[in-house]
């Protein structure tokens, strides 16, 4: 069979095997060449630190002296019995879950609104919502430190001015409100980012599906339920798990707003690791490495889960024929 015939007989979208083999062989060198920088950086700044962290976690090490005091699983045993670690672990999970639950649905609703053809000033709205994302975390922390301060913060001034409260409320100063306040501030900051993600997902839905639905007489709600939501499901899985994983890394806001307090009510994993590793000399690199590794395992579980759900969602999308 001639090569032209093979190409013609191949299903649309797939290269014939002969062509594929030839091209692959011809470009293998280039692939390796282009991948080399990434592989080198990945090995140096991801793989090696990961392996080093595993090694350090088995030592009682201050990060400076020779790596000589091997203690096996000693750090892990200590961590398992450390209530502060578990407090930080629990807080991190609560933070990540609440943060995700609170930020994603409103961001989706807003993204749907902002992708409507009839809406004016879309770009301005997008910019407004995206501005907090580009603010450094430290600046966001400072803004809210002053905004929420019970002595002279604007929030209390307003609440007292309209007579809603008589005594100043200290959202960051009580153990039952501090974590929630952090969650809300974090949502405020990253909301625009997830708005953009949702908009990107929505723009992937083919317009012709909506056109067909309109011909069939479907309303907006029906289109949302039966077209939009099912079609963006694969992206939704990825966005949700990205949101969760990103929220697990909360650190800057905790440092700038609460320093883990009051007490330990806003201790999160990154802050725990930082405190153990760096707050006093001799540093506890070994112990902090073990905590970091356990934390890494948690994040890995989320990432792995992401793949599973994403595949399931993709199958569903294919079932829709797109």
């Amino acid at each position, binding site marked *: 069979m001639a090569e032209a015939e093979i190409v013609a007989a191949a299903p649309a979208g797939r290269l014939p095997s002969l062509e594929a083999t030839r091209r692959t062989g011809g470009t293998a060198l280039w692939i390796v060449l282009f991948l080399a920088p990434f592989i080198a950086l990945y090995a140096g700044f991801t793989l090696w630190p990961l392996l*080093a962290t595993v090694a350090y976690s088995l030592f009682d090490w201050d990060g400076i002296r020779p790596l000589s005091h091997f203690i096996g699983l000693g750090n892990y045993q200590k961590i398992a019995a450390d209530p502060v670690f578990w407090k930080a672990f629990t807080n991190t999970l609560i933070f990540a879950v609440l943060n995700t639950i609170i930020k994603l649905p409103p961001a989706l609703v807003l993204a749907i609104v902002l992708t409507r053809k009839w809406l004016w000033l879309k770009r301005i709205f997008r910019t407004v919502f995206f501005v907090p994302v580009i603010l450094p975390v430290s600046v966001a922390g400072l803004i809210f430190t002053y905004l929420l301060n019970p*002595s002279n913060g604007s929030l209390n001034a307003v609440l007292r001015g309209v007579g809603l409260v008589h005594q100043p409320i200290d959202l960051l100063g009580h153990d039952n409100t501090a974590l929630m306040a952090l969650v809300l501030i974090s949502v405020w900051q990253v909301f625009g980012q997830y708005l953009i993600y949702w908009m990107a997902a929505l723009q992937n839905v083919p317009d012709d599906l909506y056109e067909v639905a309109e011909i069939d007489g479907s309303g907006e709600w029906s289109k949302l339920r039966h077209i939009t939501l099912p079609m963006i499901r694969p992206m939704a899985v990825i966005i949700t798990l990205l949101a969760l994983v990103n929220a697990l890394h909360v650190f800057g806001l905790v440092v700038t707003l609460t320093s883990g307090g009051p007490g330990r*009510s806003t201790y999160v994993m990154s802050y725990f690791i930082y405190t153990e590793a760096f707050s006093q000399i*001799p540093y506890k690199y070994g112990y902090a490495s073990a905590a970091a590794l356990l934390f890494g395992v948690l994040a890995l579980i989320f990432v792995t889960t992401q793949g599973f759900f994403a595949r399931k969602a993709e199958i569903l999308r294919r079932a829709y024929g797109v």
Partner: protein
Amino acid sequence: MKGFATPPFLRRLGNLGALGGMFVVMACGGKPAAAPTQTSAQPVTLKISDYSPEQKDFHKQVADQYHTEHPNVTIEWNSIAQAQYNQTMPLAFESHQAPDIFFWKSDLNPVLTMSYLFDQGWIRPLGKEGAVPPDWQKRWPDGMFVEGVNVKGGKVYGFPFTDNKIWGPGYFYWNKSLFKAAGLDENKAPSTWNELAQDCAAIKSKEPDKFCAAVPLKGTDPQRWWFNLAGSIMTDQPFFDLKSGRFDLNDPRLLKAFGYLQSLYKSGYVAPGVNDKDFSRQQVAAGQAAMYMDGAWMPGVWAQQGFDSSKYGVAAMPYPDDAPRGGLAQRYSENKYWLSSQSTHPQEAWELIQWMTQPDGFFAQGYLKGGFGTLAYANNQKYLTDPAMQQVIRVGTTKGFRALDPEPLLKCPDLTKSKALSDASALHPNWEWETITDAIVNNKNFATTAKEVADARQKVLTEELDKEKASGLKVSLDCYTFADWNYNQDFDVSKYTKQ
């Protein structure tokens, strides 16, 4: 497993990227330390590192002046924030990029700074192999060069920089205009806890929109008030009692100090919020709060914020009305600048140190006039012209205000090799501050958690000391116990019985 040998370059790489890539990355490499050179007229660049960024302008003046006097020497003085500094210095030494002179003070046990640095191999002796001119040592009062603290094997490695009598916590500051507005004598500070509470009541009643006290509670900042209250009734040694050799957060006297602080909070006298020290200081400077307690450095801090010393008063911290007075601790811990083992110009660096420590020299005068602190080798009274700083000196030099604490290291020299106390203190490093803040703002039972903290640390201390003793070190809990000493009396140096 003993002697796990990691190739140095791997360990260095590991340092850069460890802990999941979260931590600070610093450039590696650089030239290995060359053999020390002698003084010459060749151009020399001396690098100095510390964490006093507020002194940057002064450091530039020092560098310019020194260059004028020594045209072949250029000083590069690098001052960064403390947290960043503590992380980068180990990496600087690890990558052979250490400065010639550097600032270091151990937070856990300042007195053990030299032995820690010696252990790391970061320092070299001053002068010619540790032999310093006698007239140089005479710049300090007698008894300031102590074996184990800044002298090792007869060689001098460090020198007291900040003085240890005036410098430290123990000072009460008040905003005069708020005192006046409340009908109080603007020139009279409360001298007892009850007087302070009464003044607060007056301020609250006359100035309902203002606050009596600004008490920072964020992170480790509760120490600003805590050391003063603890020193007034017992000791400000950070949570360790040298009379009993015990971690002491649950000592009845400290529980009483806490109870007093909590009572101020409950009475609504304290500005609300878990604020940091900068915020609290600004509240006093801005006239939102009347009282603040902190250290001798406040006049310098407030001068930078434009809060003139005529607008506030300085006094000793108030004492409890119905309990014996405690004492603030005077320690052998003010050795701060060290000569780096990696310096390629140790002779020039040593000459610079001698120049810096001239009692009437350019450095001392500029440092004192800048209000950055009090120096151990200079006439502070002469050059600290700020009225508030003059008052700080008067308070600080009052007899009994600060007493010389016993030094366990002088009783048990093997403590330089011991990690027991530092391991015990490093167990959740900020635990005491977190407990204090939590109990205050959430109105929790402090005694129970205080006991939990003290017991946990004591357990580590005792166990580690036992292990070290079994390994041959002459250390025990007795090294940390000075039962005959009183908190507000100088410890009699002749009472050290070495173990």
